[in-house]
């Protein structure tokens, strides 16, 4: 089922285009990651989806309710944690969540259970009656997430949920997000690549206000190449190594370079089957393979490639 549908969304500020004709939809029960450098339009898009900002043109449908036309109905299905958690520092988490329950029109009878349940899920019970201003950043972020969970919305939008936290807190928040992903559809943004590849079922890459790629982390790699890169160091002359490799009929580009001491380093695209053939071919030619390893394209490289930040130099990093 489609939870959120974004159609031709554009946001024009006075003199720059923050979002340029973005369309996508997200489906039930998955974790989606918005990936992009700072200023790519992640926060703006999320702000619009959450109903905090108007778009210049385009539609956002949440559970088939237009966020601009049927605000009340649409907002009931979405919980939002902005980039800076919107906390009242002089309140305790319990008071704060009670206030959020009120402004989100949670029925009175359900409030007490909803507050306790949210605090249990986000691990806030220990600090329920301490002032938010005295809590650590990690706990504040949890309060922010608990706020987004009020009213039990189907979709949860988290804008950079781990930014500014220490490594231990980051791990905790990621664990929490993964937990939430079991009952909710989560859309989170990040510029930390490992986070997105670790957490998300699907990645949407934004660059300069445009949606430049969308797929699972693995598939994105395959789109850029076979996804399997082979590095080898073989003893022998450059020409003979090339001859052997070509006899195995591997496709794609071959990069050969002398590694000194009569050795040649090879970089090629090869899947499992091709690797086997290459191994036996070199064995038959009685040339010794000194080293052989394969590497997947990392999300980092995918990101640089799609956003144009790496300018095609990403692949050369290893040499």
């Amino acid at each position, binding site marked *: 089922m489609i939870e959120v549908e974004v159609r031709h969304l554009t946001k024009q500020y006075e003199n720059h285009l923050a979002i340029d004709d973005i369309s996508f939809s997200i489906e039930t029960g998955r974790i989606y990651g918005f990936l992009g450098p700072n200023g790519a339009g992640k926060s703006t898009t999320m702000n619009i989806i959450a109903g905090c*900002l*108007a778009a210049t043109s385009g539609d956002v449908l949440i559970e088939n309710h237009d966020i601009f036309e049927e605000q*009340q109905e649409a907002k009931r299905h979405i919980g939002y944690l*902005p980039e800076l958690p*919107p906390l*009242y520092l002089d309140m305790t988490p319990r*008071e704060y969540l009670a206030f959020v329950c009120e*402004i989100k029109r949670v029925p009175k009878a359900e409030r007490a259970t909803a507050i306790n349940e949210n605090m249990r899920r986000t691990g806030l019970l220990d600090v329920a009656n301490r002032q938010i201003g005295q809590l650590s950043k990690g706990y504040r972020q949890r309060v922010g997430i608990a706020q987004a969970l009020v009213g039990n919305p189907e979709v949860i939008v988290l804008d950079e949920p781990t930014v500014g936290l220490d490594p231990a807190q980051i791990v905790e928040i990621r664990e929490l997000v993964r937990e939430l992903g079991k009952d909710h559809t989560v859309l989170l943004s990040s510029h930390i690549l490992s986070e997105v590849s670790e957490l998300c079922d699907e990645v949407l890459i934004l660059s300069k206000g445009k949606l430049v790629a969308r797929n699972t982390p693995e598939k994105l790699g395959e789109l850029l190449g076979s996804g399997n890169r082979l590095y080898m160091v073989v003893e022998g002359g450059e020409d003979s190594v090339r001859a052997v490799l070509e006899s195995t009929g591997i496709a794609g580009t071959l990069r050969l370079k002398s590694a000194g001491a009569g050795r040649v380093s090879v970089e090629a695209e090869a899947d499992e089957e091709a690797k086997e053939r290459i191994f036996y071919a070199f064995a038959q030619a009685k040339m010794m393979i000194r080293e052989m390893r394969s590497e997947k394209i990392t999300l980092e490289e995918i990101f640089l490639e799609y956003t144009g930040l790496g300018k095609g130099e990403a692949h050369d990093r290893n040499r």
Partner: protein
Amino acid sequence: MIAIVKKELRSYFHGMMGWVFFALILLTFGIYTAVLSLSKGYADFSLVPYNAQFVYLIAIPLLTMRSLSEERRAHTDQLLYSSSLSSADIVLGKYLTSVVMLALPLAVCCLYPLVLSGYGRVALGTTYATMLAFFLLGCALSAIGLFFSAITTNPFVSAAVTFCALLFCYFASDLGSLLSVSILAALLFFSALALAVAALLRVLTKNWLAAGIAFAVLEAALLLIYFLAPGLLDGSVAWAFSGVALFAKLESFSNGILDLTALVQYLSLAGLFVFFAIQAVEKRRWS
């Protein structure tokens, strides 16, 4: 809306601001009661609010400085925007809170004349009419403060601008009588005002055409009056200033006149500035 009122009241009393505001109002009323009623023995308690009105110059900016600007500074406005509250709910909630904050200490002050009447005759009618006018004046002024809080991000800037605006209202009648009263000067004064309105329109709408048309219409009307009925402009500057001299209007109440036009003016000003504040929030929210 009620949720906002509850939250705001809580935050006023959790911090210093609410208590400081109460103390200011009660202290000023207490001093004037002691001096005028107890020491000098005036039977007319309405002199107390009439003399105490300057306290608003400080108390109102204190009361309204944080209400909307603090939400934006702390980025908590996004929570309100992503909830089911409308901009009107948010602003009205904030405004209602300042009205309640204003009413509480004044209700305490309303007991003083009753206590005093135990020791002599107090003109209760005049007194309570003046107290009502004093309260409504406070309502109008806090709407102005709320509006400035809506268009700034820094509470201190909001307080400073509100203070200046209130100071202008406080001295407006004196300023009006100082200014030149020649008809040509009046024309120039109102032309400048028309220009300011057009400039404001340009800033708000980012539309040169609308601003230009507004200025042309206003200026044409002014010129028509100048050439056809110049008598209308005579003394008009002083009249315009007396219009914004909100504080001075309290005098007639203290003299025992129930000035309904002043009450209506206070109420409509409050309504107008709350409306402006809603528009300011709405604009911030959607652009």
